[in-house]
């Protein structure tokens, strides 16, 4: 399991203050498309484990994070670099398309 569970209490430490690229998957358990995205995120996490941190945020339990980053559609996958969002993917996205921005 290479996907880190991100919550309101560890988001700053693990994402905003961290160096390098961090990929964050905003999801919910009731969301069908999110279930299809989950295995893709896990594969990505496995493939880039040496270079990129990959985490997920359950929007039900962390609504403030969802509001802060204007997440209005799930799954939303955001790439953070130096504490800022540098790329956003909305909806189930092809693995390669995400891997391309993690290089």
């Amino acid at each position, binding site marked *: 399991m290479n996907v880190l569970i991100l919550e309101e209490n560890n988001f700053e430490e693990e994402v905003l203050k961290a160096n390098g690229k961090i990929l964050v998957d905003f999801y919910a358990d009731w969301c069908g498309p999110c279930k299809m*995205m989950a295995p893709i995120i896990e594969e990505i996490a496995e493939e880039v484990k040496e270079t990129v941190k990959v985490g997920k945020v359950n929007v039900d339990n962390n609504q403030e994070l969802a509001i802060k980053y204007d997440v*209005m559609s799930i799954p*939303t996958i955001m790439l953070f670099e130096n504490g800022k969002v540098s790329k956003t993917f909305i909806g189930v996205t*092809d693995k390669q398309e995400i891997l391309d921005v993690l290089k």
Partner: protein
Amino acid sequence: MYDVIIIGAGPAGVSAGLYTKRANLKVLILYKDESALEKTELIENYYGFEKGIDGKALYTSGIQQAKNLEIEVKKEEVINVQIAEEKQFVVITERETYKTKTVIFATGNKKNTPKIKGIKNFEGKGVSYCAICDGFFYRNKEVSVLGNGRYAISEANELMNIAKGITILTDGKEAPEIRADNVRIDTRRIREVRGNQKIEEVEFEDNSKIKTDGIFVALGVAGSTEFAKKLGIITQKDRIVVNENMETNIPGIFACGDCVGGLLQVSKSVYEGTKAGLQVIQYIRKASINENKDFDAQI
């Protein structure tokens, strides 16, 4: 329970139907919208027609060919496709609910992206194409549904118990029939949608405005992209992503023809429909072998 439900009756859908039916599968073809083929006047580059063939004639002939083979072909609008229990899907039309083991999308490449100024800029920032996925973010908010057909009503119904109020925006088209306390209908033509970070208001051509927290786009008949988004099928630039076997990322769901992109040609659609059909046959056979194994194990 069907073995396969094919959505779309153009060259891809019908070809998939011919192969699956000839393999004795229980097949249903559902279609509603006009096919791109139907609107093509003369096709002069398709093999075997020395004087070319009229697109509409080829299309009609394809559907008749399917019917002659006793494939069930129904002209019903598909409103929703859902994943039921494991390895089963539910296809909901304006009239019926069907269960199936596999689904083939052969819905063509018609896109339902509205040509309203500003819509594109707010995708994911208030503009949504899936009520069931994104409704959660609009609890007790004012939302709009853009559209006027059965699909728009179905999206409004999804939002009914979530949003505070719903306005159906028909953008100059006829008002649909829907009765609910928190649903209003506005038939005025829209000039543009505006906002800062997120969508905030809709401006009509008569210069008046309404506030809205979100717009759910549900124009016309739902196409492959809409279904794909709801199911979690990977899409790229509004095309369904498939592998060389016409399989999507969801086992049991296949796609072929114009909805997967590439050459918009009859020959390519026929090939892909054939491939999807053959792949479904293999998928069903494998599934039934596994079922028998499970049954044997139970004994």
